[in-house]
């Protein structure tokens, strides 16, 4: 039993990583019905940019951090929205999704050529010590990721439901035409979502990179699992990302423990198929009206 709980907690911790990355999928989907296939790279890049700033300008870590984060928000929050999303959004989901695939190649190869092909260690914001929880040891790093994932989603829910700005954003997400008639600055709201997405990617990056190391190829795995988590949880609900992420993380951990390490990847995917056959909109998702 203790063994089972240990696997469970390991799964929740990994799942929280996926959840943090998956929030971005749901946010971008809600405001612009776009799937960002570069989401994994969005989580990979901030850490690399920070290390690069430190390396290039010989700055202390905090200053490099600020520069890296600012550059990232500017290019991949605002720039991404203005240069890539805006001109393409009216042409449907697919060309834009493909464009984000090309973007992911640019980010990945850019990080490799501009920084390093090898993994680099990234300093941890929280101590790397272990704590004992109910007889199970868990690292503070993992604990921090779990706490931040829950807090981020709680805050987002509160923001969307409990503040004026959030409600405006929600209205924009659900029906931009009506929102515009109501006098909501739709363009600014969409831009805000993309900035929020980039900011969350930075948070995820800062928390994950100390464990996962900073490496150009890290986005591949995180992106795929976050995508699966978003599908399972439901693309149109932010809390779907949390539920999906943790479910996938736990499934992965238990599969490695009790089924087969060689086929551990298969278990989350079979889960994915089973869930969408039963509940196509995802566990937490709203049914989207059929457009006739």
């Amino acid at each position, binding site marked *: 039993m203790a063994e089972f709980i240990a696997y469970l907690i*390991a799964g929740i911790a990994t799942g929280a990583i996926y959840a943090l990355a998956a929030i971005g999928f749901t946010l971008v989907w809600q405001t612009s019905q776009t799937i960002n296939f570069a989401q994994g790279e969005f989580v990979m890049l901030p850490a690399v940019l920070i290390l690069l700033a430190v390396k290039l300008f010989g700055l202390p870590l905090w200053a490099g951090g600020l520069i890296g984060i600012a550059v990232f928000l500017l290019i991949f929050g605002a720039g991404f929205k203005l240069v890539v999303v805006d001109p393409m959004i009216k042409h449907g989901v697919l060309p834009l999704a493909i464009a984000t695939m090309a973007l992911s190649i640019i980010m990945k190869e850019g990080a490799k050529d501009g920084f390093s092909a090898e993994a680099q260690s990234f300093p941890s914001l929280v101590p790397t010590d272990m704590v004992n929880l109910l007889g199970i040891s868990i690292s503070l790093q993992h604990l921090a990721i779990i706490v931040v994932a829950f807090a981020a989603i709680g805050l987002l829910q509160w923001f969307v439901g409990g503040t004026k700005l959030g409600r405006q954003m929600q209205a924009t997400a659900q029906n931009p035409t009506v929102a515009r008639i109501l006098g909501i600055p739709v363009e600014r709201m969409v831009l805000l979502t993309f900035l929020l997405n980039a900011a969350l990617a930075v948070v995820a990056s800062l928390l994950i990179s100390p464990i996962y190391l900073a490496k150009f190829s890290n986005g591949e795995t995180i992106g795929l699992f976050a995508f699966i988590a978003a599908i399972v949880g439901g693309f149109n609900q932010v809390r779907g990302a949390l539920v999906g992420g943790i479910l996938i993380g736990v499934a992965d951990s238990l599969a490695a423990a009790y089924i087969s390490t060689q086929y551990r990847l298969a278990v989350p995917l079979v889960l994915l198929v089973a869930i969408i056959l039963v509940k196509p909109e995802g566990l937490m998702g709203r049914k989207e009206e059929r457009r006739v």
Partner: protein
Amino acid sequence: MKSLWVMAAALGAALSLPAQAQDKVKLVDVIELSGAGAAAGTNWKNGADMAAADINAKGGILGKPVEIVHYDTQTNPGNTRAAVQRGIDEGAYAILGPIFSGPIGASMQISQRAEVAQIVGGEGAGFTKQGNPYIFRTSLSQTAAMPKIAKYLKDTVKAGSIAVVWVNNDFGKGGRDAILPELEKAGIKVAVDVSTEQGQADFTADAIKVKNANADAVFVYLNEEESARFLRAAKQQGIAKPMIGETTLLGAKVLELAGDAANGAKGHVGLSTDAPIPALQEFGKRYREKYGFASDHNGIKGYMAVFMVKWATERQKKLDKKGLADTLRGATIKASEEPGVLMDTVIEQNGDLDRESFLAEVVNGKQVINTTLPRIKP
């Protein structure tokens, strides 16, 4: 219709290659610079570049400068084949790389058909068993290294049971398939056999699994970054059993990334810049100065590969492609004759190597070589 002709003509122009001048020694390096093998490939590329610079600084090979062209394989067999074919069409004197077994398997017939030597960085057992006389290694194969590990586990570590953690790609699977029979021969029980994915997000579940198996030792056969992350996860789970590895586990990169979690790790090392051989240490120092990070074993392999070409060319005294392979086959290269190969190296008829190797341990974040193991067939 006209546009179709224009397109075809442009295509033809783009894909046909200019004739080559014979005033250079042209080596084509077909190597993993993107995809799963990018880290390994970058080390190899740097090593090869360094070797070319060293050779050219001393007048080249037979008075001709060495030119290396690097072609990325994207760690994809189809692309590797295209790149090797391109190298051969361009009149490459020899092909260097790749490292991963799949790309090697997809491209080795090309160099064989063209009768051009291909000097690769792969450690998998399979490709030297196919009777291809043009393929050459730059390191021990897994079939050569694993018996040494098994012996070490039995005699030095005195392990009765072991947990095996491996990465499920051609490198890790090859190593695991090579060590299991050796463990059986040595009478060591495999307590748990854990497969992991390259680029896996978290190793906690694997560490718990290993911990619960409660074996006498843990054999870790992962790529560098994954080795480091597994060591960290194992430390967090409080695994106190000795971590045993082969080459990668004790690599400089792992020590840098894992920090004190690597302390106490030990095992067999084929190539290391910390080996008690001055030439290797000197290479490691210069590499770090030039590229800003420590070379792993692939950097050493890339360096040696170019010097293997130099040695054989000077031995046959001409730039004969087929002769290069014939000279290398069965040769013994002494570091006293050609300092660039760094260690005495015996090339067997099938392209396998035999050379000394080391037993090492990590103490205070540094790799310490305890024992130098002799060649298998001294």
